């Protein structure tokens, strides 16, 4: 795959950081910021887990990275280019390289599993080919291989709405991986799943990211699950980053500062 834009740093053989967020602010209503001055660097590998109470802007932060939510100000530098100031076409081309996994899977319910996987290639095919379902054969082969890899090889022609939650999320991950992304985002990927399936889904994401050699950013509200898989934990509270470090260093005092004090621990 060739990158659509040349990057001066890349030309020097010094690849830019996959993601650097600078002074990111977002408010849905004026004067009520959801995110305040977020600075965050993501290195080229590693599983970053964002924890924090509901409504603290975790989901907004994730969505600002691929601009499903428009940031109010600040920079989101994806491989050195500012996503916030991109035009429509460049934004589309950037989104192709950022895979996303959703809380409620967000599969197209009435399409088959294999069609949902091929959705991951929609950034690359013309509307005409998309309409006629004429994806390049290499994409089709990739989709079937990937479906085997996530353990759903025999469900290719099932409609997505006939699957269980865990199966759906596997399809959701496979769809993101189909994009051959350089960064994987996941917004509460396990919130609608039982504990065992949640662990399996997290493992699948770790494995996929390992094979693709890309970083992952996951929002999660289950602190124990997040810690178990994280290489790095970001704690957020009231729209700010209040903890940033390895999961081992996360103490109860930190958790109290993230979620607020109380007898819940």
């Amino acid at each position, binding site marked *: 795959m060739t990158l659509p834009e040349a990057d001066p740093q890349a030309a020097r053989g010094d690849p830019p950081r996959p993601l650097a967020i600078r002074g990111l602010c977002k408010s849905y209503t004026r004067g009520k910021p959801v995110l305040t001055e977020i600075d965050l660097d993501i290195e080229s590998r590693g599983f970053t887990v964002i924890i924090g109470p509901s409504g603290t802007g975790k989901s907004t932060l994730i969505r600002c990275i691929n601009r499903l939510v428009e940031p109010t100000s600040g920079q989101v530098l994806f491989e050195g280019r500012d996503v916030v100031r991109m035009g429509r076409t460049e934004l*589309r081309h950037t989104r192709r390289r950022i895979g996303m996994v959703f809380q409620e899977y*967000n599969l197209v319910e*009435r399409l088959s599993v294999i069609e949902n996987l091929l959705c991951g290639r*929609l950034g690359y095919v013309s509307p005409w080919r998309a309409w006629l379902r004429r994806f390049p054969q290499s994409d089709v082969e990739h989709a079937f291989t990937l479906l085997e890899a996530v353990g759903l090889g025999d469900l290719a022609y099932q409609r997505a709405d006939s699957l269980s939650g865990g199966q759906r999320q596997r399809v959701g991950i496979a769809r993101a991986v189909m994009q051959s992304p350089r960064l994987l985002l996941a917004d509460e990927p396990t919130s609608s799943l039982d504990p065992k399936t949640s662990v399996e889904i997290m493992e699948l994401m770790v494995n996929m990211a390992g094979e693709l050699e890309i970083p992952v950013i996951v929002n999660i509200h289950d602190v124990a699950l997040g810690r178990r898989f994280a290489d790095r934990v970001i704690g957020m509270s009231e729209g700010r980053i209040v903890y940033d470090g390895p999961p081992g260093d996360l103490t109860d005092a930190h958790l109290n500062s993230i979620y607020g004090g109380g007898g819940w621990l």
Partner: protein
Amino acid sequence: MALSSGNGQQQLRKPFPVNWLLRLGWIAVLAYIVYASSRLNVSWDRLVAGLGYGGDFLSRMVPPNFSRWKLLLEGLIESLEIAVIASTLGILLSLPIGFLAARNMMPGWVSWSARALIAICRSFHPVIVAILFVKAVGFGALAGIMALVVASVGFIAKLFAEAVEEISLKQVEAVRATGASFANVIIYGVLPQVLSRFIGFSTYQLDSNLRNSTMVGIVGAGGIGGTLFAAFQRFDYDFVAAILLSIIAVIMLGEYVSGHARRVFE
């Protein structure tokens, strides 16, 4: 409070509170019907007199006279052609118009102008539209087709817009997040969610165009309606009966076919 029972004077609690406003509303409707009937000279005597004429009319309708079957068949085929052509064009036009009218997909000024267009298409009964087109393009099937296209757009474009407005945006968001172009988002994120409903609307519209196509002929816009109207005017009530029976047969056949079509697509 109601909880302090033991007191003999306890008030009975009603699960369904009386809505006096609603009752007054119903009384007003009833009163208006009585008043309107008296104004329009609708009375029992008038009904009895009317039934007398009706009996005479019915007796002249039997037996239905199919001797001019060629004329009848010609009219029916023309009606069918009008219905099929008008439905196809109407559906093809409704797709983009309905989509443009969906408020969750389009900016406000686009959806409002599309909605205005749909509202104009809906505001007149097909007969009135047919008269307008007969005046505009002359007698014949063309006027009928145009009238029914307008009627179809007014009906299914609106339903289609509503179907698009009810889709799950989560699925759309996921497709957008892959970097898909706007057209591809529509094809993969939106269409699959509305397709089966849209096919339902379309077959329903074909049904209703079949019905309407037998009627536009009355104002000179082609089809069996013209034949029917002529037969009425010449008091050929046995031929009228033959036409009416044939229309019933065609409509029932149409319903059967469209019902099947729907099942095939589900």
